[in-house]
C-alpha cells in the first residue's frame, strides 16, 4: 500500500515542476507579445503532454504494484 502511494507521490513531483515551468515561460512569452497566443498555445500543450507522460509512467507502476 505504502509502495503504491510513494510511487505516484514521488513520481509526480518532477513532472509537476516541469509543467509549471513550461506554463510560466509560456505566460511570459504571451505577456511580451499578446498577439502570438495562437502560435504559442499548441507547442505548449504538446510539451506539457510530454512532461506529463513521466508522471503517467509512475502511475502505471503504482497500478501494477500489488
Amino acid at each position, binding site marked *: 500500500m505504502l509502495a503504491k502511494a510513494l510511487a505516484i507521490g514521488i513520481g509526480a513531483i518532477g513532472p509537476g515542476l516541469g509543467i509549471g515551468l513550461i506554463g510560466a515561460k509560456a505566460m511570459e512569452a504571451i505577456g511580451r507579445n499578446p498577439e502570438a497566443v495562437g502560435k504559442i498555445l499548441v507547442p505548449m500543450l504538446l510539451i506539457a*503532454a510530454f512532461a506529463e507522460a513521466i508522471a503517467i509512467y509512475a502511475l*502505471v507502476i503504482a497500478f501494477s504494484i500489488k
Partner: protein
Amino acid sequence: MSLNLEQNNLNTNNTEAPVVSAEISHEHTLYAEQIGQIGNFPVTNSLLNSWLVLLVVVIFGVIVSRKIKLVPRGLQNGLEIIFESFLDMFDSVTNSRKRSLKFAPLVLTFFFFILLNNWLGILPGIGSIGQIVSEDGHQAFVPFFRGGTADLNTTLALAIIGVVASHILGVIATGWWYYFNKFINLKALLEIPKKVIKEPTILLVNPIKVFVGLIEIIGEAAKVASLSFRLFGNIFAGEVLLASMAAILAWGIPIPFMFLEIIVGLIQALIFAMLILTYLTINTTKEEH
C-alpha cells in the same frame, strides 16, 4: 448500476447492495479480460472495441467517398477544412507540403483510430454492460466492452507499427548504407586510416561517433516504450478516474471529468500522430553538411 446479462449460479446469501457490492468485485484490472475465443485466439473486451472503431471508420469512409464533387458541400466541406488544417500542422514539422502529403495517410490513420478508440471508452454502456464470472472462488464483473487504447496490447502494437514504419521508410528514402551507418557507424571506423594523417583528432572523435550510434539503438526501444505507455497510461488512468468519481457520487461529479477525458483523448491522439510524423521526418532526411 450494472446490467447483468448473464448470471452464473450465485450464492444464496448474495448481498448485492446498490452502492457497494460485498460479493462481486468490480475491479478495474490492468489487463483486458477475455470474453470469448475464435479458435485458439482469445478475444478480449478491448479487442471488441477496436473492431467496433474499425467498423465505424470503414463505413464512414465508404459513405463519404461515394459522392465526391469538385465543389464540395456539406460533410465533404467540413472534412476538407479539417484536412487542410491538419496539413498545415504537419507542414510545421516537415517543412514541405509534398512530404506532408506523402505522410498524411499513415499519420491521419493513427490519429483517427486512436481518437475514436479513446472517445468510445467514455460512451455510456462501455464498461458497464457485462457478465459475472466466478474466478478463483470469488465472483468478478467482466464488462463486454472496454476502451480500445486502455489495453497495453493495442498501444504497444500501434507504437511498434509506427516506429518500424519510420525505419522502413527511412531505408527506402535514404538507402541502406546511409541508414545502417546511423546506428552502426562503420563509415566512421573506415575513415580513421584514411584521414588520420591529415587530422589526427579523428582518432579520438570517430570511436565516440560509433558509440553514439550504438546508443541510438537503445533510443529506438525507448521510443516504442514511451509512445505506448504514454497513451495507455493516460487513457487507463482516465477510466479509473471516472470510475472512482462515479463511486463517490454518480450524479454530477463525473461531468467535469468527462470533459477532461474528452480533451485528454484528443490531445493524446494528436501527440501520438505528431510524434510518429516527427520520427518519420527525421528518419527520411539526409543531413546536409
